[in-house]
């Protein structure tokens, strides 16, 4: 079996067969699952502890998963369960290394940010100042293939406030549910949604400007 392809998720067997075969020592399947789920598990870990030790966190979490697998009760899907273990492992690390990011400050940021009130895209009655132009590029792959644009996106992602970045990684890269994200980051769901939208909207504007002017 060849599992080099990244998009192997759909080739994995359905849930109950997956769990049974993993418990019964299907090594090839185990490797396929580790590889197929790594991008999203990595995203969860990186969102919480940063990129430098994210792989390590995922590895530690898998070791716990292997031990607990025979006791897996199937109350959620296996992937959700593994994701939660990764998140917990990351949170433990995060506490140990006592990083200085405080998620408490979310409310404050929200209250003091007047960007939306003075959004230059809209006039005083809330209409677009200029008609929003269509983009030439119509698919995510085309956007990803545009090297200069991606460098530009990188630059702006690195400037986003950390909370916004975390929430966006958890939701848009790792595909986690809001409830889960709020538990992990200890934010209210209304704050999480506002911060998520800020981040996405910012990147939309970055791409839009690049499309319009070719400049970052």
């Amino acid at each position: 079996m060849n599992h080099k392809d990244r998009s192997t998720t759909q080739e994995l067997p359905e849930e109950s067969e997956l769990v049974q075969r993993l418990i019964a020592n299907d090594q090839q399947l185990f490797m396929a699952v580790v590889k197929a789920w790594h991008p999203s598990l990595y995203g969860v870990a990186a969102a919480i502890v940063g990129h430098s030790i994210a792989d390590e966190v995922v590895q530690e979490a898998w070791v716990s998963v292997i031990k607990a697998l025979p006791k897996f009760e199937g109350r959620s899907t296996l992937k959700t369960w593994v994701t939660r273990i990764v998140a917990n492992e990351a949170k433990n690390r995060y506490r140990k290394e006592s990083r200085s990011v405080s998620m408490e400050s979310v409310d404050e940021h929200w209250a003091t940010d007047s960007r939306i009130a003075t959004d230059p895209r809209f006039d005083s009655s809330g209409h677009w100042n200029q008609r929003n132009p269509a983009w030439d590029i119509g698919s995510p792959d085309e956007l990803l293939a545009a090297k200069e644009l991606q460098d530009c996106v990188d630059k702006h992602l690195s400037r986003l406030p950390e909370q916004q970045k975390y929430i966006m990684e958890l939701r848009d890269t790792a595909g986690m549910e809001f409830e889960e994200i709020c538990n992990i980051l200890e934010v209210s769901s209304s704050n999480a949604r506002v911060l998520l939208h800020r981040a996405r909207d910012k990147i939309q504007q970055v791409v839009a400007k690049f499309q319009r002017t070719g400049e970052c």
Partner: protein
Amino acid sequence: MLSCKHLVEQASDYIDDQMTMGKKIQVKMHLFVCVSCRRYLKQLKLTIAMLGRRNQHDAPEAMCHHLLKEYQKTLPKQGS
């Protein structure tokens, strides 16, 4: 009617289906008549899809080896 600015502010809630039915209808009505907001929504979806596929990070080989060993050790073949 919902203004463009308000629609843009709530676009993620609309996309993520985190909206009441009443709000959703307001958004749909606005989109029906406003090309700029239709484009914005399409562009935001595209941005989200792009973000979802960036930084796809493959599992490192060393980690795979380590985990396979751990797996063999902890969950031995049944019957052996």
